[in-house]
């Protein structure tokens, strides 16, 4: 079964969210990168851009498909993983670590509680994952 850290929250679009102080770090899950196959390109917003929950903040392209990336929470993008420009394979190699994508400064604290827990995400995957 997929690798699903218990200290993170998840979306039904297979992003993970991690609380860091007042901010939320975002990436895609181990399951997502496995389904995508080798990631060849990641398109991310610029720092300062707005993010809206369940709206696209970027695009990930793999050898199989091009997929939108959806923001787990609304707010402002305060940090972007520039390393992915040259080394998109980090998304495959270390999806929860060096393959992170953006950091959002949330504007609506209540949205955090709408995200799936690790257990809920695992159940969601068990049901087919879409």
């Amino acid at each position: 079964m997929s690798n699903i850290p218990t200290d993170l929250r998840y979306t039904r679009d297979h992003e993970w969210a991690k609380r860091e102080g007042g901010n939320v770090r975002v990436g895609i899950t181990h399951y997502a990168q496995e389904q995508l196959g080798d990631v060849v390109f990641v398109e991310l917003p610029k720092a300062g851009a707005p993010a809206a929950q369940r709206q696209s903040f970027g695009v990930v392209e793999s050898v199989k498909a091009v997929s939108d990336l959806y923001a787990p929470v609304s707010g402002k993008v305060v940090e972007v993983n520039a390393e992915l420009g040259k080394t998109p394979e980090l998304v495959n190699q270390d999806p929860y670590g060096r393959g992170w994508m953006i950091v959002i400064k949330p504007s609506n604290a209540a949205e955090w509680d709408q995200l799936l827990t690790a257990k809920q995400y695992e159940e969601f995957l068990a049901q087919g994952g879409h």
Partner: protein
Amino acid sequence: MPYDNAKTYDKLIFELSSPGRVGYSLPAPDVPVEPARAQVPAAYLRREPVELPEVSELDVVRHYSRLSQMNYGLDTHFYPLGSCTMKYNPKINEDMARLAGFGRLHPLAPDALAQGALRLMHELAGMLAEISGMDTVSLQPAAGAQGELAGVLMIKAYHEANREKRTKVLVPDSAHGTNPASTAVAGYEVIEVKSDANGEVDLGDLARHLGPDVAAFMITVPNTLGNFEPRIVEIIEMCHARGVQVYMDGANLNAVLGITRPGDLGFDVCHFNLHKTFTTPHGGGGPGAGPVGIKAHLEPFLPAPVVVKDGDRYALDWKRPKSIGKLQAFWGNFGMHVRAYTYIRTMGPDGLRAVSENAVLNANYIMKRLESHFDVAAPGPCMHECVLSARRQKRLGVTAMDIAKRLLDLGFYAPSTYFPLIVEEALMIEPTETESKETLDAFCDAMIQIAKEAETNPEVIRSAPVTTPVRRLDQTRAAREPNLRWRPGA
């Protein structure tokens, strides 16, 4: 090993180049010659001569003849690429397209000297309108995606003419990638509508998204899982009730010729892929042709010019002030119009209906023969294509991509893989009506052999292909470090 031309030839034409060798001899000019420097501004002149291969006529003929022997196409092999309708292209189409009156006609010839060509375009548009139940058809779009763009731009012009501000277009999550792309190019925001467990549109999700800001809903019928949307009339009524235009992606029209018509179902716009349903060449990049059909309320917005008939004369009508404009050079890929016209006239109405009946029969035959060996993405019966999932094989370490590569070794082109996106390890098989039962059986035998190999000898699948001129390519590196052209000395 015997010498095998098709496998051992790997030259670029630049590598055949020999300084000073030429393949032409031109007579002395009989007009004054002026150097380019005297006629072209310096900024546009090259600083060094262009590097062209210096080869003889025989070098050129041999080079391309040898490369042509490496071709893999419908004239040599079965090509079950799902959603692409790789059916046989009858050779009579080629004969007709080469008639001097068509093949050698200049696109800028005055209308009076092009009456035959204009009549053919007018009649082809009429026949496509009759087949689809639409009111008018424009032949101008150069391919399916441009047909989509033309259709969406007409919808946009229609809403704007009604002074309505609508900013979104809905597209199912099973859609061809061109749908969201064309929609975005037209300036709309794309909203994805979920499919239910059978791959059909989730009506609840559709209803949630149908707001006053939605311009159109774009849907492929039959859908990309090879199923006819059973509630399509209800879906179209839901959309129309909210002022939303409904666009049918006609990529899968081959399943319903003479059986149902998009216009009768209520669609406002529908494009055709002449290079799929109507047997114009498809492999090798086309050129394609993507005519677009519309209902009468969109007629003012058609791409200009439109071929019109006045008495027994035909003309190009440019006086269309509300037109979305001209989409490409000249009037569409005319050679493809000739071929599609020929095909429709050759088949006739009963023949076209038989096309779809046999396409559906063939797909169901394959699905039935393979359903115990692979998982089926959606319960059958299917329409003209069936979608399998290799999820069972993936647990044995064999992916859909591996299966596709192994099929090459067994003498078949691979089905579409990893599409539609909502199916895990998808293998989308579209046999078309032009294949015999013997070919379908040979293909199914190969698929069953691979399913067994996945259990007994997965390595033979994972290491495929071994019989092709090149082995498995590194598609990841090709995408990450694209190397797109030859450079001198590289």
